[in-house]
């Protein structure tokens, strides 16, 4: 199966059948690859699917400027689709205006991203490969497990490299707060690098604890190669373990962090033990 040809076929079909007026995807031209809004099926011949280049954030920005009746198709990897779902759930995107064309990632890409779900809900192009368990990755484990002190040193060594480009925030499809907490003088000092280890990086990470779709855009954008995804992975794993919740995969369910768990446990899930014990101690 040729993923690029299948992707082109799917994109062309969407335009020809009028399911969307435009397809946001990647185009390869003389200047290399860049995002492009394809509106003419004849142009689809230049559509490509590599490199990994997330489009959910671009789609959000573009849709704001498009006419109300415009329907936009987006070439989506699994994480891109999850980001779009999450944005729809949080009223940042109008789901009726979006059409997802799903791309499955390669095994190599899944490994590079430590991705647990390297495919969207419906795959139009690419072969579905199994997800990767980040807790089996040797390097990831040195950041996620073991002696707390050692881990703290490891993290401090990495985060000390931060040059405060805000690329992690700027590239994150889910980072949409206005004003941004990272621009609040109470938490983050101005005008010096590195950015505060705790108040910059952990505020950013916790702000995304139940919305992060593990796309890795933050890490991809980091000029100093700080393994920012590993900050999110343990929180994602916790949400899955305790609440069976994964951001962006369930279109209906609210985040457990927005629910009153003692009153309204999500159907099918038990109240985690520590919630009850918390109640007892009050």
């Amino acid at each position, binding site marked *: 199966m040729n993923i690029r040809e299948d992707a082109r076929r799917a994109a062309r079909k969407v335009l020809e059948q009028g399911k969307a007026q*435009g397809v946001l995807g990647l185009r390869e*031209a*003389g*200047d*290399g*690859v*860049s*995002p*492009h*809004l394809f*509106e003419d099926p004849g142009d689809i011949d230049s559509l490509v699917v590599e*490199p*990994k*280049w997330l489009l959910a954030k*671009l789609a959000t*920005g*573009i849709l704001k*400027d*498009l006419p109300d009746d*415009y329907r936009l198709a987006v070439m989506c990897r699994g994480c891109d689709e999850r980001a779009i779902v999450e944005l729809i759930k949080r009223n940042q995107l109008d789901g009726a205006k979006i059409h997802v064309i799903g791309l499955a990632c390669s095994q190599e890409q899944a490994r590079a991203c430590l991705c647990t779900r390297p495919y969207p809900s419906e795959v139009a192009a690419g072969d579905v490969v199994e997800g990767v368990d980040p807790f089996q990755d040797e390097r990831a484990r040195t950041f996620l497990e073991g002696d707390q002190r050692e881990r703290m040193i490891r993290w401090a060594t990495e985060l*000390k*490299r931060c*040059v*405060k*480009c*805000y*690329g992690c925030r*700027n*590239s994150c499809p889910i980072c949409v707060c206005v004003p941004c907490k990272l*621009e609040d003088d109470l938490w983050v000092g*101005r*005008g010096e*690098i*590195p950015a505060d280890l705790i108040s910059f990086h952990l505020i950013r990470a916790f702000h995304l604890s139940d919305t992060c779709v593990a796309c890795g855009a933050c890490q*991809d*954008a*980091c*000029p*100093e*190669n700080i393994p920012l995804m590993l900050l999110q992975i343990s929180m994602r794993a916790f949400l899955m373990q305790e609440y069976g919740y994964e951001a962006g995969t369930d279109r209906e369910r609210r985040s457990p962090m927005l629910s009153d768990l003692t009153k309204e446990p999500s159907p099918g899930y038990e109240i985690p033990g520590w919630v009850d014990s918390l109640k007892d101690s009050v």
Partner: protein
Amino acid sequence: MNLGFIKTTCPYCGTGCGLVLQVRDGKVVGNYPDRDHPVSKGSLCIKGWNAHEFIHHPERLTSPLLRKGKTFYPIPWDEAIDLVVERLGRTAEKYGGDAIGGLCSAKCTNEENYLFQKFIRAGFQTNNVEHCARLCHSPTVAGMSQALGSGAMTNSIKDLEGAKCILIMGSNAAETFPIIMGDIYKAKDRGARLIVVDPRATEVAKNAHIHLQIRSGTDIPLICGMMRHIIEHSLEDKEFITKRTEGFDTLNEYLTGWTVERAAEECGLDGDMIREAAETYATAAEASIVFCMGITQHACGTANVLAICDLALLCGHVGKEHSGICPLRGQCNVQGACDMGGLPDVYPGYQRASDPGIRKKFEDAWGRELSDRPGLAVTETIGSGGGDIRSVYIMGENPVMSDPNRNKTLEFLKQLDFLVVQDIFPTETTQFAHLILPGACFAEKTGTFTNTERRIQLLRKAVDPPGEARDDFTILCMLGKAMGLGFDYTDPSEVMDEIASLTPLYGGVHFYRLGHGGLQWPCPTDDHPGTPFLHKGEFTRGKGLFVVPEYTPPVESPDHDYPYIFITGRMFCHYHTGTMTRRSPSLNRETDKPFVEINPVDAARIGIRGGDAVRVSTRRDAIVTTARITERVSRGSIFAAFHFFEAPADALTIDALDPVSKVPEFKVCAANLRKEESDGLS
């Protein structure tokens, strides 16, 4: 839907990162990192992420402006062009062509810089063409050319990732070249040793294995001490020295005076740290040296660069994939502005203006007689009170903010018969112009930039310039035509074809070859793939030359009246004279006022607290700024960034020059510091 994505090149530093500009209805509405870019690979620094913010700023210059008294009035382009030609012509007629000076721009494209120097050289028979490279890497061009035969970064940025040891001298790359810093960290993660030489405890220094916190201006003693230690322990690359270099014996003799103990004494360091650094660098299988303004901006700048070349030659760490000498060039196109002959002694491609054969080649091509007299260095001209220069054309430079000892610059500009300044914003320099020409910014033009690793990349037009502003290519073509010089180019690509025909380094460079990733010079022919690293097998000059780096201490030392060493430099969220970054809301939010860094011990002694207004003075001038108390500077040293017009650091700096390259000693002068009792800002 009128929406598009334009790939182009970042207008800030010399890394040359890839931007994708999002354009809607003739406006740039977004800016993203280019994930498909060979250098930046989807990353940007804070400046790059916000590079679009000044494009549509309301203060953009939108019409030619003529001074009448103290006020500027808009005039039509044809009048402006006629006026430039008439006034410069009158000066040339009255005083000769050498009474004209031109400053081209490291912020403009190769094509524009080529046309600018052609306009000055062919139009007025003078070699008085200069630009801000004089203020930064002129010692690099001079020193590396002498030792190796080429003044450029020997290797590619990505080569750093594979080095086993990186010696970083006088570069705060984490703030000034954040993307390149990422490649350095990659090397560190793969086991490379990082050695940093810097009088300040910068973020680079804090993340290094060894930080040699030398006394400002003692780089030569340090390197000499290291070299002597290397030779004493037979760690030099004897085969490399024999086969590929000359002049070793003379250097070796000079080094006998430089024991590690003497070096340690001069530098204020522990001798064992010098020994460890020397052994680490010498014994690494592949090692690179990265250096920047901390090396060059000294009155012994050229000797500093020569010392670096000596060290690399001694250990055989040059001319290989992961081993080289890497000066990081500051401006987006400072490499290109030098390559294009924006210097008073060379035509494009470093072809010497003093060589009659070369001159003949350009006379034939340009159809004009050219001057055989060498041009003047801008720092020398201003330092000597202007000399014989009567009229000046400045394209995209702001010398009032960027040149040392500001009062001298002001004196020079005020006494000119005619000053025309071409820029995108009103600047501290346009205030003194008789005529202002509105140029175009990076997003409004087509052309090429050459980055620090000699990569020639396309700049692609995304939107039109505002109002009556024109891209600098068009302005220069109008001027050239009015001067009768031809200049009937319809497109910048034709200029590059002309450059290629006259410049062997760029011989195979054409726009159609630059689509994705560009080309690294030397690229002599149309089928040449470009050159990722220089001096493979043979140095450009043949053999690598060891040159004795004579040590001269800084011109000013701290004394009773001026007890502090004053260091200037840059910071992560602003760029140079601030013309663009101070108008970028996200960057100005990060830092919106000037500051001076003071060590806590010094601050406590003179009763200064963080945020206090302080007066910093030198023998030249004084500024009032805000105290920032930090251990980043050592006791007895203070640091100020030069981005802030409210407290211009370069009002204070000394205009002592390196005798070879004429670079000013921006990095060291003596200063005094006291708390400003009133609010001080009035």
